[in-house]
């Protein structure tokens, strides 16, 4: 599929076309915080930014999501029987999503939709009805390390379209058929536009100097990594809060709970986190991951050993650096992984 060109002064048209049958969202500055918000007009688009504070995973996996409901009345004819929630009514587009976040959805697709039984219909429905238009990262942050975990500032995996900011215009690269369709009205890019984009890509990749090594982790036995003495120190300062997991684009653990109010009843899922003791505790009080050490170890082992082992080498981290920035005690994933890989 050929690269296209989207001039910035033609954005209004492009957005309007998207809005015909889709709700369009984009990053927006809200009191110094960059958040995802509905996009009304092209002028509101922010072009210079590192990344949104939180990952956009809640578009597909909301922090609180009603899965099903029931009539809380055992005597009613259909009482107490669970009924699934309706599917997403309208299609959506996420504009200017960063490649790392899109890559994360690719990883999550492998986890949420594995086979006929492990087929998370709530995730799948929203994924299928959302167009992802990525904005390549030309100026990665010092906390970014995407290039060292199989991703990159211009990475295309998981996206429908990749935009590269060339100043007054954007190179628009169709990646999926869905993406090609959205770009069909645009003119083709000239060869030097593509060359310029390639240059930007190279420069962005080269600017990422700090990262993680995972070569030895992938060759090591689970138990050898699990029993490394480093775990005795890594967890010491951890508060066991949920910050790293909630801001993480690939963390996907959840809890399921029932709620009732009079005749209304529902089953909801809420984000949960492996740092919480409650997460794994048995009804008997026994807890397989009883301490801070076990829980901290789980998070890193899951992302850098268990997921790759089960998902064809794919690492459960995209190097977005959010946890590095937000961890209240600065537990830096790069340091942890490098000591795992030592």
């Amino acid at each position, binding site marked *: 599929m050929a690269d296209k060109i989207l001039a910035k002064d033609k954005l209004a048209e492009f957005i309007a076309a998207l809005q015909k049958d889709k709700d369009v969202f984009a990053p927006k500055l809200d009191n110094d915080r960059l958040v995802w918000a509905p996009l009304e007009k092209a002028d509101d688009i922010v072009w210079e930014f590192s990344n949104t504070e939180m990952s956009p995973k809640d578009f597909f996996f909301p922090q609180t999501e009603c899965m099903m*409901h029931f009539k809380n009345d055992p005597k009613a004819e259909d009482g107490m029987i669970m009924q699934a929630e309706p599917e997403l009514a309208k299609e959506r587009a996420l504009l200017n999503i960063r490649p790392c976040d899109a890559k994360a959805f690719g990883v999550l697709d492998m986890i949420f939709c594995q086979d006929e039984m492990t087929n998370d219909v709530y995730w799948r429905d929203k994924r299928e009805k959302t167009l992802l238009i990525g904005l390549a990262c030309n100026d990665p942050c010092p906390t970014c390390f995407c290039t060292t975990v199989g991703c990159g500032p211009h990475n295309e995996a998981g996206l429908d379209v990749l935009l590269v900011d060339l100043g007054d215009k954007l190179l628009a690269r169709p990646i999926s058929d869905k993406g090609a369709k959205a770009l069909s009205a645009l003119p083709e890019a000239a060869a030097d536009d593509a060359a310029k984009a390639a240059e930007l890509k190279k420069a962005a990749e080269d600017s990422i100097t700090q990262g993680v090594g995972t070569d030895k982790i992938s060759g090591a036995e689970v138990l050898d990594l699990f029993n490394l003495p480093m775990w005795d120190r890594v967890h010491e300062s951890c508060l066991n809060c949920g910050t790293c997991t909630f801001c993480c684009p690939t963390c996907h653990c959840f809890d399921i709970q029932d709620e009732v109010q009079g005749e*209304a009843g529902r089953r909801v899922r809420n984000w949960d986190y492996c740092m919480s003791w409650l997460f794994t505790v048995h009804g008997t009080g026994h807890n397989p991951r009883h301490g801070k050490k076990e829980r901290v170890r789980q998070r890193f082992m899951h992302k850098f050993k268990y997921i790759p082992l089960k998902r064809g080498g794919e690492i459960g981290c995209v190097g977005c650096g959010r946890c590095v920035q937000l961890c209240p005690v600065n537990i830096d994933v790069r340091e942890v992984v490098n000591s795992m890989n030592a």
Partner: protein
Amino acid sequence: MKNILEYVGIEPDRLHFSWISSAEAEKFQKTATQVCEAVRALGPAQHMIKDIRKVA
């Protein structure tokens, strides 16, 4: 408790405290009536209400 609820905007009349001995039947009856009247006068609570029928 009363202060903090008031501080966040809950009407102070929704929370009442009283010492009533098990022997003070009449005081209990009076206080209960007063509490009911005070709360009824405020009408239904507007805050700290979770309505799963709405958010579902």
